[in-house]
């Protein structure tokens, strides 16, 4: 998925640092569930590659996030503690600042297709096709009361 060489990357070093801090704050690693965070190198590379077409609006959001951090805490966003980073990220998302929703969406898209994450959820790490899935028929006798009630459509 992530197939980016450095020269293709429109994100500057500072933007990338803020971006990784943000996605790691949105979805952190969990020892309990044995999953990486969204700032895991493989997942982050996927996020950066996927976010490339939206660089302009995402960069504006990252810049705004940095301003918020400087204003509130007098330090850069990436240097904040995890709780403060998550709180600012949530606040920016709720404000519907352009680009944040896009980045959160991309983060979820890339995170929840990672092998380790899928396996922790009990999923096979594969696309749906060609194996497909088994779905039980269910209990068709549940229709009995519907049948007993009889016709409900109108005849004009």
């Amino acid at each position, binding site marked *: 998925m992530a197939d980016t060489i450095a020269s293709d990357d429109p994100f500057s070093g500072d933007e990338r640092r803020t971006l990784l801090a943000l996605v790691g704050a949105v979805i*952190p690693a969990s020892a309990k569930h044995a999953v990486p965070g969204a700032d895991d190198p493989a997942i982050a590379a996927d996020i950066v590659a996927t976010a490339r077409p939206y660089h302009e609006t995402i960069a504006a959001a990252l810049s705004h996030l940095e301003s918020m951090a400087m204003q509130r805490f007098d330090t850069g966003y990436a240097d904040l503690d995890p709780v403060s980073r998550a709180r600012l990220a949530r606040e920016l998302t709720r404000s519907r600042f352009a680009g944040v929703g896009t980045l959160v969406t991309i983060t979820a898209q890339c995170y929840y297709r990672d092998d380790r994450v899928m396996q922790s959820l009990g999923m096979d790490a594969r696309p749906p096709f060609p194996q497909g899935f088994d779905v039980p028929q269910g209990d068709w006798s549940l229709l009995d009361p519907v*049948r007993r009630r009889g016709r*409900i459509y109108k005849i004009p």
Partner: protein
Amino acid sequence: MTDSVDVLIVGAGASGAAVAWSLAETRMRIVCLEQGDWMNPLEYPSTGRDWEARGFGDMSISPNRRGRETDYPVNDANSPISVANFNAVGGSTILYAGHFPRFHPSDFRVKTLDGVADDWPIDYQTLEPFYAENDRMMGTSGLAGDPAYPPKESVMPPVPLGRAGEAIAKGFNELGWHWWPSDTAIATEAYDGRDKCINLGACSSGCAQGAKASTDITYWPHAVRAGVEVRTRCRVREIAVNGQGMASGVVYFDRDGVEHFQPAEVVIVACNGVGTPRLLLNSTSGRFPDGIANTSGLVGRNLMFHPYASIQGVFDEPLDGYQGPGVCIWSQEFYETDPNRDFVRGYTYEINRGRGPVATALAGMFSDRIPFGDGHHDAYRQLFKRIAGMVGICEDLPEEHNTVTLDPELTDGHGIPAPRIDYTLSENSRRMLDHAVARATEVLEAAGAKDVITEAPIGVGGWHLMGTARMGIDPERSVVNEWGRSHDVRNLFIVDGSIFVTSAGVNPTRTIQALALYIADSMKNRLANLFD
């Protein structure tokens, strides 16, 4: 100048495919111009790990988000519901869910029954044989005996109830309300060269298995074998008229952007409720300065969506999630008008099986049910495979101020004016949406849901585009007659959702196709005097 053809069809979607196949037996020379491509199912999202992400990108239901070369933009900024469609051989059947109900007998008589809108110039009995013919061609699955419908057969057994269908069916039973296995355009057995459904779950971004009945794999192979020619990447700019006021053919751009004129004896428009009025309004001439077939002034008016309500429950136990066709059962408990309610007409509940892992995360994070940071994973696991619910598909009544017009600035890649949508949700629709949300919440709670997530109307839910070139007997109050021929131009026909007089409260594709077959049959029966 190209050789003249007998029949020129614009659009290779649900209706264009059906009318082409039906007319093919006449041995006339038939050409269909389609602005999109033939799709390759091996490139559909379900073949890749990024299958959910692509539903937000190149396989999005929104033409504005997709932005493919084969799409045209739509200015729907002045509408609470945005347009969904797809441009390819197969049209929007490539992306539809395959939920496939018929209209009801009462849907054709709303003026008589409820004093609103207009009656159709045809009735359920007229369409019934064409519904059945379409069922055979598309390969429908379902269960005979639904008490919400007159008797009808099903070609194949229904899709499985699954865990989600079973849970929600119990909720309906608890309340004593109607439900039934949905009729679907999904093959549950091998059928007409198609493989049976293997529960990929990604129906709405193209079926790689070929189980879902998109018309590129149902009607078109038969029509092409019978001699119909499909020209892809051909975008029609306008329908031309001759000195006698008849359609003389169409002007179109080919894949290289080269402009052509294709003469034709008969022109059939099959671009649905937004594409069709756009083409008619773009077809101006000295004789038709306000657009072809628009003497009534009704081309582009009476746009109907189906306002959708989404009501999703969160359950304690894992259900089907992303596995299986999204559709499974329906309820028409609140379909017919009830004078005790504060709205007329009604709606269908289409029960949804579940969501994929990404959609689950987004639903949770954007509704504050999944926090950022600590607690994300525990909260996520409370939702994953545990969300199931339904959408309420509300009948939208025709109102002339809901319109498709030509945008004064926006154009497509060929410089053709793009459509602009101006649409207001009616008070009747708003009350119906509220009712649908409240009753569905009761069902989900009866089924054991511990939390309910709602959205009404669904902002991106303009899947159904109807009414903008309505059918009728009176030329002053309709655009086409009771068998689809323009009142103004006797060799111009329209066969898609734009000719709907009312919208009913069900997904429209099965009726669009039955109408297309009925119009084709009417044409075949009148070949000797088609233009009289």
